[in-house]
């Protein structure tokens, strides 16, 4: 983990390579007191392990999907997943619920992925997921229903391939929308752009995905 400073209304790192837009730190929001996840996080900050377990069970799958589809590599996704939760654990004692916990969590994930991209600097946006990588991401086959498993695998492969054709910014907004279940305003805040920009990126992403999937289903 790099030396990064965190705040609930946005995260920043010391890197200067601005490949992606960064969140702004200036804006301050009032404490969110009606977010149950935020209360769980505060409880964990007081030392209640059960609160963390509940929090983790609620968000682990969505966060993992977001990271897997961003990184397109299971090992990298595993590392990023642990890094995100490590940051959550480290921040616990000074956590202030200035936004929904889900926003906070995906902001961490977004920035962890950006930091990772800056570290490797070798994965161009829009790289199509290779079959070998896709196979690594798939769960074990359902031996009882090989036909259903094959169909599901085929759908997954097409979806990931279509997703991989998206530019990084559009894929980022789309995955945040799909996996984090956040609003456009919150996604805009995480990605450090205006709400209209986020909406425009999402519109383009959805249009391209729809076209790509249609083309895959009907090559003719």
């Amino acid at each position: 983990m790099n030396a990064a400073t965190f705040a609930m209304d946005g995260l920043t790192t010391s890197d200067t390579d601005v490949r992606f837009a960064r969140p702004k730190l200036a804006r301050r929001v009032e404490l969110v007191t009606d977010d149950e996840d935020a209360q769980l996080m505060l409880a964990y900050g007081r030392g209640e392990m059960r609160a963390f377990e509940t929090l983790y069970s609620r968000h682990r799958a969505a966060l993992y999907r977001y990271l897997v589809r961003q990184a397109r590599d299971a090992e990298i996704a595993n590392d990023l997943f642990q890094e995100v939760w490590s940051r959550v654990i480290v921040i616990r004692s000074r956590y202030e619920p200035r936004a929904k916990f889900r926003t906070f969590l995906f902001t961490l994930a977004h920035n962890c992925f950006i930091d990772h991209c800056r570290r490797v600097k070798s994965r161009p946006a829009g790289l199509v997921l290779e079959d070998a990588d896709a196979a690594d991401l798939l769960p074990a086959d359902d031996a009882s229903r090989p036909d259903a498993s094959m169909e599901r695998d085929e759908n997954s492969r097409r979806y990931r391939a279509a997703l991989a054709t998206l530019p990084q910014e559009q894929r980022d907004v789309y995955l945040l929308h799909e996996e984090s279940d956040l609003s456009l305003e919150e996604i805009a805040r995480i990605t450090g752009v205006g709400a209209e920009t986020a909406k425009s990126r999402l519109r383009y992403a959805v249009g391209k995905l729809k076209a790509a999937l249609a083309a895959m289903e009907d090559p003719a």
Partner: protein
Amino acid sequence: MSGDDEFDDFLARRKPLFQRPSAHELEPPAEVDRLVLRQAREAIRPSRELHEIRGAGWGMPLALAATVLVTVTIVLNVMVPRKVDHASDVHQVAQRIDAAQPNATMAPSVAPAARAPNNAARPAAAPALASAPAFAASEAAAGRGTPPPTESPRVAAKAAPAPAWRRDTQSWLAEIDKLRAQGKIIEADAEMAEYKRQHRAYAASPDR
């Protein structure tokens, strides 16, 4: 339906624009879950232990300090003998006696052994030896017609004539009791100190 309407439906999560894999397709590996939960558990363990120690943090040093203080006090009171300045007390008593008997003749120094023949455990001639040089010096000075050499108060006290009650052990102790009865505690203590100095066996006996 226009594209804008479709997109609005998509945004409102009312209608998917395309088929996407099941949401449960990907799950973090169990090993990753275990690592994250273990890290979370270990992160709060030290703080909890610190909190428990912090609760009694002021009590433990206080208890240790109190224990050390009590122990040192007991050791000092039991093991270290109290210092009594016998010499100064004796000197004071001697001065008072001299003041009360200005014309008393200088009685020859009698050895305690001679004054208290009944005291078998008394050291033989130690006090006499202690006072003999001073007396001899005084005599010699008188014979030469020159003033006696300046003596220290302690030597002067030892050279002073011994009171009559000191010649006998019983008389001496009776005098000490008499002084105590008169409320002359300092003089009584000084006499007792001198008595003990000359009668070491009395001072060292277990019932004293």
